Structure formats: C-alpha cells, structure tokens
C-alpha cells in the first residue's frame, strides 16, 4: 500500500480567496484522484489528475474552479478557487494502479467563512 500525505490538514479561509491542497505519495503511482466529501455525505469524484496533461473533470466540476496539477508520478495539487461557503468540505486525494483499489490520503478539512 502507498502512504499518502496531504497539506494542509485543515484551513479556514475567507470567501473569494483560493486554497491549494497538496498530495504527496511515497511511491510512483499510475492514477491519482481528487474527491470531495461534505459532512455526513458520501464521496464525490472531482477529477482524475493526469501526469503531464490536463486533468479529467467529472460532470459539475470545471478547471477554472478546481485547477489541478500533476507534475510527476508522486505529487499533485488541487486548488479551490474563488471560494464560497458552499465549498466547505473535506477534500481527499487517492492513488492506485487500479481504480478499484485506491488508497486515500487523510483529507483536508476546508471551512470557508
């Protein structure tokens, strides 16, 4: 299994600002994903982070709002742009060589005031 770290673990931000979340893996992995999980809810996939190319976004999520970078096989960032209180959530990155056996990071708890 892979060891995944995320930074920051939590943050409180003002509306209209942006936050970049980092995801670091201790080994090279084929796939990296970003999820959002609102309190008491299930996980929703935001996008697949593709190494060396633009991320693949799920329906309802756009690059302008959630730009993603993946410069190499062990690191990715997700930016939550122009935040509003509705963006308050837990953001999780996951990695794997198959989509059905993913390893998740500890998550970043974001509160937007």
């Amino acid at each position, binding site marked *: *299994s892979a060891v*995944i770290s995320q930074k920051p673990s939590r943050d409180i931000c003002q509306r209209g600002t942006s936050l970049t979340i980092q995801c670091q893996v201790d080994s090279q992995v*084929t*796939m990296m*994903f970003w*999820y959002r999980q609102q309190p008491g809810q*299930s*996980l*929703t*996939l935001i996008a*697949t982070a*593709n190494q060396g190319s633009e991320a*693949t976004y799920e329906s309802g999520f756009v690059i302008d709002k959630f730009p993603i970078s993946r410069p190499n096989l062990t690191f990715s960032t997700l930016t939550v742009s122009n935040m509003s209180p509705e963006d308050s959530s837990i953001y*999780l990155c*996951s990695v794997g*060589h*198959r*989509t*059905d*056996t*993913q*390893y*998740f*990071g*500890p*998550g970043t*708890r974001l509160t937007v005031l």
Partner: protein
Amino acid sequence: LAKTTQPISMDSYEGQEVNITCSHNNIATNDYITWYQQFPSQGPRFIIQGYKTKVTNEVASLFIPADRKSSTLSLPRVSLSDTAVYYCLVGGSENGANNLFFGTGTRLTVIP
C-alpha cells in the same frame, strides 16, 4: 456505470457477526466488487475485494453469489472500533477511467 444499493445504517452489539448486503443488479462482466471502510475524519480504507464466490482476509469475508447481482460483507465478532461507514463499489479499471461510484454507504454502529 454500475451503481449499488445498501442499507443506510445498521446497529450491532459487540461480539456479534455483522453482515452487510449490497445490491448491484447492473454489474458488468469485468467488474470487481470492492468494499471500503471509513472512520470519522479519515479517508476510506480498502478492506476486501472479490469477483465471485468467497474471499476472506484478516479483516472480513466477502460472499458473492453466482449471479453476482449482490454481495455480502461479513465482519466477524465486531468490536466498538468497527464503528464506521462501509462502502460497496463495483467497477474498476487500469486505464485511468474512474468508473467507481461511492454510494451512500452503510453506517455501522457497534453498541457495547
């Protein structure tokens, strides 16, 4: 995209065996069945995966009937630390296309 249906919540006493059943009527031939466990304030954790019949590991057993339209996660002799949300997923690929769907999950509460 194969979706799943599972009970929203379950309660169990410590020491009992817990069985959580998941329905996946539209499962495709190549789909695996995977279960994840999520504790509060943590990311989900992979616990078991199967394709057909029975799979057992140190944490749980997974029973899959011949038609594969459902599966049952079995947790032997649960303890308070097994209180968590359990997600059943079907699908999976190696080509980067994420066809997994995390449904509502089953919130298991273990009672002393």
